[in-house]
């Protein structure tokens, strides 16, 4: 059956299974990815079916995981490594930024680094410190990396296929609070390009741009605004590096207004990049300044406060109202 309804987590699992099945050079690596199937069970059952040589439990050392994956990639393998949680990627940040991102260029293109770094990210699940962060801008700032995040099961399935097939390193941010959301996945569909944004909902009065976990919030906000007679378009960016500005531009030229929504702190966040570029591209189409909704310039708060920190329906609608008031 080509079309099936499954959770985003299951879609990732099925996608990794297909990748392992298709290409014997694909490896899964990470802490607890074997028997346990990962703390979110994204790799559930894969070691059982593909063996310990393909699905590799690693020592608890993130720099080691990414550093050895680089070596395996140099040997011709295509490692997909799991960083257990967003806040744990920093011990590996050096290997990702100083080595993984630059090696292809340093070798004048003679070698390729097809490594996927999977990072469950973002808040909303009541977790402890270092388990709820959104560090995507730190990676998007680095040339040589692709940075993507699916918002739904179908994208999760197809973007993972594309990430594994990419000859460039891909930082694959998985919206952990959407792992259990179900959606239809057509495993025979022909997907759009990995970096292409998609219009998740059409509208004429204002554009909401978001990615990963915030797409659902934006769709809910658009539905709520509809009841008040406002027509909101939602663009799912899908990729934070590169960003498909053409799709955002086309939407803003139609609506004249843009609000960018993400969980990461607004300051120096991806919203700043989008606001700057879209202002440059669409200056004469804009009816209001590009507004941003996101986290504060504060460490991600304790779980009992995260509902205040995370952009929710009300904060998004407040920004919509402010934009429309210009």
């Amino acid at each position, binding site marked *: 059956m080509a079309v099936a309804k499954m959770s985003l987590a299951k879609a990732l699992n099925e996608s990794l299974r297909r990748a392992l099945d298709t290409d014997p050079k694909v490896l899964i690596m990470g802490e607890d990815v074997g028997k346990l199937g990962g703390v979110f069970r994204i790799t559930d059952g894969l070691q059982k079916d593909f063996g310990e040589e393909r699905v590799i439990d690693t020592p608890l050392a993130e720099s080691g995981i990414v*550093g050895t994956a680089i070596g395996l990639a140099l040997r011709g393998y295509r490692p997909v490594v799991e960083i257990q949680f967003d806040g744990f990627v920093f011990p590996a940040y050096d290997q990702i930024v100083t080595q993984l991102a630059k090696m292809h260029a340093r070798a004048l293109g003679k070698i390729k680094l097809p490594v996927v770094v999977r990072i469950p990210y973002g808040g909303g699940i009541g977790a402890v410190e270092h388990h709820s962060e959104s560090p995507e801008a730190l990676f998007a700032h680095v040339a040589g990396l692709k940075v993507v995040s699916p918002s739904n099961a179908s994208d999760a399935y197809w973007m993972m296929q594309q990430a594994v097939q990419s000859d460039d390193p891909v930082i694959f941010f998985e919206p952990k609070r959407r792992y259990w959301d179900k959606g239809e996945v057509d495993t025979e569909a022909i997907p759009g390009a990995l970096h292409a944004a998609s219009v998740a909902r059409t509208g004429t009065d204002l554009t909401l741009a978001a990615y990963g976990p915030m797409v659902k919030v934006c769709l809910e906000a658009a539905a709520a605004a509809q009841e008040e007679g406002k027509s909101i378009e939602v663009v799912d960016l899908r990729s934070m590096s590169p960003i498909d500005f053409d799709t955002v531009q086309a939407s803003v030229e139609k609506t004249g207004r843009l609000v960018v929504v993400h969980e990461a702190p607004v300051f120096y966040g991806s919203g700043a990049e989008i606001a700057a570029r879209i202002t440059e591209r669409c200056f004469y189409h804009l009816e209001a300044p590009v507004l941003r909704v996101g986290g504060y310039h504060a460490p991600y708060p304790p779980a009992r406060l995260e509902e205040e920190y995370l952009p929710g329906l009300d904060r998004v609608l407040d920004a919509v109202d402010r934009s429309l008031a210009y």
Partner: protein
Amino acid sequence: MTVESTAARKPRRSSKRTSAAKTPAKAPEGSAPELVQLLTPEGERVEHPDYSIDLTAEELRGLYRDMVLTRRFDAEATALQRQGELGLWASLLGQEAAQIGSGRALHDDDYVFPTYREHGVAWCRGVDPTNLLGMFRGVNHGGWDPNSNNFHLYTIVIGSQTLHATGYAMGVAKDGADSAVIAYFGDGASSQGDVAEAFTFSAVYNAPVVFFCQNNQWAISEPTERQTRVPLYQRAQGFGFPGVRVDGNDVLACLAVTRSALERARRGEGPTLVEAFTYRMGAHTTSDDPTKYRADEERAAWEAKDPILRLRAYLEKQGAADEAFFTALDEESEALGKRVREAVRAMPDPDRMAMFDHIYADGNPLVDEERAQFAAYQASFAEEGE
């Protein structure tokens, strides 16, 4: 217990090392052997129970030639930096035996992950020495194809490459290949977490990798005592694989010990740490001034252990090389210096558009956009000039 007394402790080694080596991922019993030496600073040949070596006169001359030419290349690069032709140079002066001995132990299908000072190892791999100068001249950040000589790019962030070597070695094992991998690093890098993680991963996965630490006593201005409280080779034991300290100024010992470690890796018996006990005679790089942090007497003491002089003394005693050999080698050295000098001066600056090349294998719309903007900006000057 002081460092000195640990280092001087008599090993309970004898034949244990050989038998222990047959069990993967298990450390040898007792402490590791003391400094392995096969050629004294005076050029006397000595035997070691675990590391015998028997080389023909031609092979000995070959090692000597490698060391002399490497030193000549290094001297030329240092001079080129002083003349403003290179932005920086990391000299290997004094470390020729460690690099040529280990480099000549490698098979063609072995893979090397260097730091940024392995000019002698590159020489052994057949990498054209002028290729090494591009990054120091500022025309590229590496610039050679690592797969053409199985010699990876130089790595500036110290210790990072030990993990790449380990991963590569894990791949070699997966492929069922009987080649080995060698990672070079220094005593300063031994303090990095990546090196400890590389030790962990290589031991856990029994990876066919040799960690070759050139302990040249100084990490810029920090002495080895600021990196470790135990002799570096002893670190290996805690990770579950053998460590051995070799006289890093003795090319025969470096060759024998590295050969043994590589063979062990090829047999599927896992990693080995080799600590080549040597000395960096010059500065860390040409930006550095070693007179500010170390005594002249120390350098003088190491000068007496010079790797080239001791092999020359042995060659002469053995009658393995005549005057014609040394004369011809002198001429070859000068020719190499001249070739390097001319090649560097002729090295073109990269095309300005090259900064947009090879950032992504699959291409990238942002890079394309910025490349086009930059090209248009540059073209605007050309139009103005007309």
